[in-house]
């Protein structure tokens, strides 16, 4: 009874905070099923009308495919670069290790907006036109620090021992890296890939600044926002949210399965 009394304020605070955090999400998802032109009360529904409209929107579907392609390709490049760098840092501390780590982590402290403006100006000076490729480059820049940090944090003495063992058994540098280290590091590589892909999938400002005719889904949704409140935006937002959450959950489950199987 006493613990119950002691914990009541905590439970109330937790519930109120959760209500605050979930309020906009619930409203967004609920009114994507609205039967009517406005995503505000009263709720008439449920109806799949706005989802049908969304999937019939060719420009939106095109941008969705663009987003998926950019997310996957940029995540592959990010994970590859992050893995190599983490391996290089962990295997034997190179000279200037501190400054190398600082340089790799530096993009974290700069706003996406500024990174985007910098890339835009560079494209302009060099004379390259804006494209999805440039968007992908930008996404690698912003995600590389996180992926490097995740993978680097999972290197430890045990990986160094395995590395030594593989070499003593006659494996070459590349064989060791590809067949032994990459295998041991699978959970963190997968986690880094999924995180990078979800962040790219949801990124707006760099895609907005660096793309031209082929755009990504967040850019299209932003264009739709200009026409005011419509349940179609709710439907698109719900779709983006659902795909992100699914990726994150699948990643979390897979990583914990991969790591627990090893023990």
């Amino acid at each position, binding site marked *: 009874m006493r613990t119950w009394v002691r914990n009541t304020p905590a439970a109330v*605070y*937790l519930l109120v*905070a*959760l209500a*605050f*955090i*979930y*309020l*906009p*999400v619930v*409203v*967004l998802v609920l009114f994507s099923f609205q039967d009517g032109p*406005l*995503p*505000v*009360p009263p709720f008439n529904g449920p109806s799949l009308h706005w989802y049908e409209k969304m999937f019939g929107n060719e420009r939106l579907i095109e941008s969705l495919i663009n987003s998926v392609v950019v997310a996957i390709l940029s995540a592959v490049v990010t994970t590859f670069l*992050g893995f*190599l*760098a983490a*391996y*290089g*840092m962990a*295997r*034997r501390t*190179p000279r200037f290790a501190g400054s*190398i780590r600082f340089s*790799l982590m530096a*993009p974290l*402290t*700069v*706003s*996406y*907006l*500024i990174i985007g403006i*910098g890339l*835009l*100006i*560079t494209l*302009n*000076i060099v004379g390259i036109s804006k494209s999805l490729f440039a968007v992908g480059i*930008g996404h*690698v*820049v912003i995600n*590389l620090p996180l992926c490097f940090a995740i993978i680097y944090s999972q290197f430890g003495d045990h990986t160094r021992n395995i590395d030594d063992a593989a070499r003593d058994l006659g494996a070459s540098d590349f064989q060791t890296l590809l067949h032994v280290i990459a295998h041991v590091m699978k959970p963190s590589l997968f986690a880094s890939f999924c995180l990078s892909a*979800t962040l790219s999938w*949801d990124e*707006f*400002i760099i895609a907005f*600044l660096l793309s031209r005719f082929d755009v990504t889904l*967040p850019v299209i*949704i*932003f264009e739709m926002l200009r026409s005011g409140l419509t349940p179609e*935006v709710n439907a*698109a*937002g719900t779709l*983006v*949210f659902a795909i*992100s*959450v699914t990726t994150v959950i699948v990643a*979390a489950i897979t990583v914990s399965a991969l790591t627990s199987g090893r023990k």
Partner: protein
Amino acid sequence: MLAKAKLTKRKTFEFTRWAVHPALIFTFLFFVLPLLAMLIVSFWQRIGGKLTATWTFANYNKFFSKDYLVEALVNSVEVTLTATVISVLIAYPLAYILAYRVPVRWQRFVLIFTILPFWTAYVVRSYSWLLVISENGIINVILTSLGLIDQPLEMAYSRGATVLGFVHFFTMLMTLTIYANLVQIKPSYRKAAADLGASPLQIFLRITLPLSIPGVAVGAFITFVIAIGDYINPQILGGGNEVLIPQAIILQVSRAANFPMASVMSVMLMVVVIVVYFISAKHLKMERV
């Protein structure tokens, strides 16, 4: 045997150096160079629609002579600081409850559940709040039907709405960093303090709070960096009454293609972030969180 060991060592060392290079070169080409280009262009001018290397402070003079541009920067700092402080005040008790009041086997689940809306589509997050607080939004409809108000409250399209949007997102982020810090504090510290006769309030103020400052600092710093550079949230929730610096930058780029002026503003934004970094640097130990 000794010779072989030596050989392996040398080979590894070279390979190691090679392994870091791709990421370093990439970061240099697509992060360092663009920022340098931005800094350089901030001293250039756009003459007849073309970038010309003029090497002048004219753009900076123009920035500081236009009240509305300086004001945009001041507005940005005010909004971001307000949002950061409110987010800490909401997130700290939440992280504390998660770490010390929720049973250990439930903690992971409750934490994940708490930060799940973090993954709401970024462009749609502010829009969702519009659905909640707009004139015919859910809050006004509920309050009117309860008879508490006659006229709908004007909440959307204001500075308060911008702050609300930020607070929502960054409460989740800071709950995560503060929680991660709190669970690392050894329970034995608090037990020792209690054994020595400290009251729960004393334990919190003298032990838990000081030890959790790094988590707060890291969360607050990340919040500040992301929020001050955010375009979407003020654009959608803020309305047209005041302009924040990211909106001013995008205006320069999209309407006028005025890269020199956009560069000046971006440089000013970076200067603010660097100043904040040095103010909070002594608490920022990124590895600990």
